C-alpha cells in the first residue's frame, strides 16, 4: 500500500523532493550532517504513513510539514545549549553598520536611504534572484538567521519564537529587525541596485 492509485511516488520525483528538503534543512540548521538526518527521518515518517495523495504537490506539502516539525525539534534541542540572545561579534558589526545608515538626527544619510525596488515580485520568477537570496540568508549570523527563519519559514508567531528560544519579546523584535535590515541591504546591494551604483 505504498502509493495512491494513479499516482506513483517514483524515485526520480523523490530525489527532487529530497534535494529541496536538504537545501531547506541546511539553511535552517546550518549543519549538513544534521540536515541529512532530519530529511531522512522526515521522508521515512512521511512515506511509511501510507497515506493517499492527490498528486505531487500534495505529497510535497505533506513531506515539508513533517520536515518543519523535525527541524523545530532540532532547534529546540540546540537551544538548550546556546544562548540566542547573546550578541556575537558579527551581530555587533551588523548593528554598527545599521547605526552608520543614519545622520546624527537619526534620519537616513542620503546614500543609505532605502531605494525604490520597482516591482520586486518579478524577481521571484528569476532563478538568479534566488541564488542571491540564498547567499544573503547564509550571510546572516547564525542566531539572527535562526530567529528570522523560525518566524518567516516555519511561520511561528513571535510569542512562539520567544518561548521556543527562551528570549524576551523585545529581544525577538530586535533580532528580527536586524535580520530584515541585513537581508534588505544585502538584496539591495547585490540584486536590486546591481550595476546601478557603479561609482
Amino acid at each position, binding site marked *: 500500500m505504498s502509493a495512491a492509485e494513479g499516482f506513483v511516488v517514483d524515485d*526520480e*520525483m523523490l530525489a*527532487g*523532493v529530497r*534535494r*529541496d528538503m536538504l*537545501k*531547506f534543512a541546511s539553511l535552517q540548521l546550518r549543519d549538513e550532517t544534521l540536515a541529512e538526518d532530519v530529511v531522512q527521518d522526515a521522508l521515512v515518517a512521511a512515506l511509511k504513513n501510507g497515506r493517499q495523495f492527490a498528486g505531487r*504537490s500534495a505529497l*510535497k506539502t505533506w513531506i*515539508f510539514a513533517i520536515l518543519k516539525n523535525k527541524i523545530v525539534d532540532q532547534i529546540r534541542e540546540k537551544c538548550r545549549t546556546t544562548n540566542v540572545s547573546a550578541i556575537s561579534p558579527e551581530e555587533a558589526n551588523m548593528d554598527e553598520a545599521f547605526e552608520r545608515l*543614519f545622520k546624527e*538626527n*537619526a*534620519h*537616513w544619510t542620503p546614500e543609505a*536611504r*532605502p*531605494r*525604490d*525596488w520597482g516591482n*520586486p*515580485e518579478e524577481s*521571484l520568477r528569476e*532563478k538568479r534572484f*534566488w541564488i542571491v*537570496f540564498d547567499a544573503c540568508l547564509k550571510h546572516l549570523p547564525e542566531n539572527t538567521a535562526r530567529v528570522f527563519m523560525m*518566524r*518567516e*519559514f516555519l511561520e511561528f*508567531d*513571535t510569542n512562539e519564537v520567544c518561548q521556543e528560544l527562551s528570549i524576551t*519579546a523585545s529581544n*525577538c*523584535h530586535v533580532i*528580527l*529587525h536586524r535580520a*530584515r*535590515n541585513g*537581508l*534588505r541591504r544585502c*538584496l*539591495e546591494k547585490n540584486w536590486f541596485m546591481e550595476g546601478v551604483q557603479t561609482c
Partner: protein
Amino acid sequence: MLSCKEATHLVSEGLDRSLTLPEKIQLEMHLAMCKGCRNLKSQMSFLRQACKSYLAQEKGQTDSTRSR
C-alpha cells in the same frame, strides 16, 4: 516626531505584532512625509513575500528539471 531610525523599528515590529493606535498614527505620519521609509516598508513586506514563495520556487525548479 518619529525619526527614520525609530520608524524602521515600528515597520519591522508591525510585521510581528499589532501596533498600538498611537504607534500607527505616528508611523503613518512619518511615512506620509518620508519616501525612504516608505521604500523600507515595501522592502520589508517584500522580504516576507519572498520567504513565503521560497518553497513554491523550489517546487518550480524541480518541475522544470523533471520536464527536461
